[in-house]
């Protein structure tokens, strides 16, 4: 327990003193995960929206595959990306291995099934309730998917949160394709793993606390946006209810 409290105190000191080494790792982590998330969520949104409204032969097989990919271990993604980007691999000529791009690609592939599956579920539910009316207005499959995605944008914030959480907290894929190179590809999770194995618990704990803090802040922001929307719509509903009662 004393080791923990001592480590925690040192960790807080590192955080409050804005340790440059610590900040560099945190900044890199955020950059990699945010870029991967932006790419994967953009693609997952379009793909998930389409899957939510489209009906085609083999759709169930696609959904089964998608759900299977949700549980894929990050080390497997890391291995696949490693094989793709290694010198003898099909994308070896890009020279991305042990670089920022390799980590982004690995995390994006890891997050893509999450963003696609969650979007698909939200849009499919909306399609069942409202799809017919949009069809009646003349919206085709692709447009219906996009309109419903736009309409469900607040519900899809959860998808964004889950995707970012999956990306920033994974360690296996970035360790394999990034190599955990100090000052270059070291991110929070790989640094935590390394420092723990070295016995440098304060730095590991400091990084852990920051990781937790980042996810907490993001979650709080999304909750705020949702509450604000509920407040605006609820208030307006209240106003119209009062107006009706007075009429």
């Amino acid at each position, binding site marked *: 327990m004393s080791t923990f409290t001592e480590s925690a105190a040192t960790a807080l000191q590192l955080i409050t003193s804005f340790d440059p080494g610590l900040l560099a790792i945190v900044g890199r982590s955020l950059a990699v995960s945010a870029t991967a998330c932006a790419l994967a969520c953009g693609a997952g949104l379009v793909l998930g929206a389409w899957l939510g409204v489209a009906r085609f032969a083999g759709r169930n097989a696609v959904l089964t595959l998608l759900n299977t990919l949700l549980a894929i271990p990050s080390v497997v993604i890391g291995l696949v990306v490693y094989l793709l980007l290694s010198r003898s691999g099909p994308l070896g000529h890009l020279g991305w291995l042990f670089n920022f791009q390799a980590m982004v690609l690995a995390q994006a592939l890891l997050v893509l099934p999450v963003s696609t599956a969650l979007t698909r579920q939200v849009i499919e539910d909306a399609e069942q*309730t*409202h799809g*017919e*009316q*949009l*069809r*009646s*207005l*003349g*919206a085709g499959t692709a*447009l219906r998917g996009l*309109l419903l995605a*736009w*309409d469900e*944008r*607040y519900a899809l914030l959860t998808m964004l949160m889950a995707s970012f959480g999956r990306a920033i907290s994974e360690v296996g894929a970035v360790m394999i394709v990034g190599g955990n190179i100090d000052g270059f590809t070291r991110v929070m999770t790989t640094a935590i793993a390394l420092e723990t194995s070295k016995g440098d618990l304060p730095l590991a704990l400091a990084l852990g606390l920051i990781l937790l803090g980042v996810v907490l802040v993001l979650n709080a922001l999304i909750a705020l946006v949702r509450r604000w929307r509920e407040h*605006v*719509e609820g208030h*307006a*509903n209240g*106003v*119209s*209810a009062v107006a*009706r009662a007075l*009429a």
Partner: protein
Amino acid sequence: MNPLFDLQAASVSFGPVHALADVNLRIGSGESVALVGANGSGKSTLLRLLHGLQRPTAGQCACDAGARQAMLFQRPFMLRTSARNNVALALWLRGTPWQAAKEQALRALERVELADKARRPARTLSGGQQQRLAMARAWALQPDVLMLDEPTASLDPHAKREVEQLMAEFASGAQRQDGRPVTVIFASHNLGQVKRLATRVIYLEQGRVQADLPVQEFFDVERLRAVSSTAHLFVKGEQV
């Protein structure tokens, strides 16, 4: 004159459930047709079939390809945007450029006396206002055929009257820029509404058309009894 809709032995089945069975029907331009029947009798399925949202699983459903259609649902779906944008979107989906669509949307809102709510989020409007907004959306499309699936079922009496008035204006052509009457086909449980708005009544039971009569004859008990052994009981029950 060719009918707008021509159904020949049209059936719709959902697995073992026969929602519509052997329906033969012709609906001409300018008619105001009410579809009545108990819950699950096939009214909504018939409307969806006529509107093209449902294909017949047997038989034929031919419709005049040149006729513009619009449909109103019991609970109209409004996107999470302003009332004006909701109307404009319907126009945009039919090919009107966005700016022109927004201008036309405002005119449509004026038509249903919702111009002052143009900027309000559509979902914050009351049920009756949302149904009028749906009417504005339909009006903006200038349809030849307007279909309504129990449009006043969940509305209070005041809102009901407003929607009925708009329906009557549609049927008379007052809501069209060229003044041509619009063919109105609506499903309803409200027999008073049917009397006020319909020129023809189709009674459905378990997916089959049991009676198809001009409105005066439908409410003539002896005439109705001669056509269907059950329709008059439905009318009696609904009027109690």
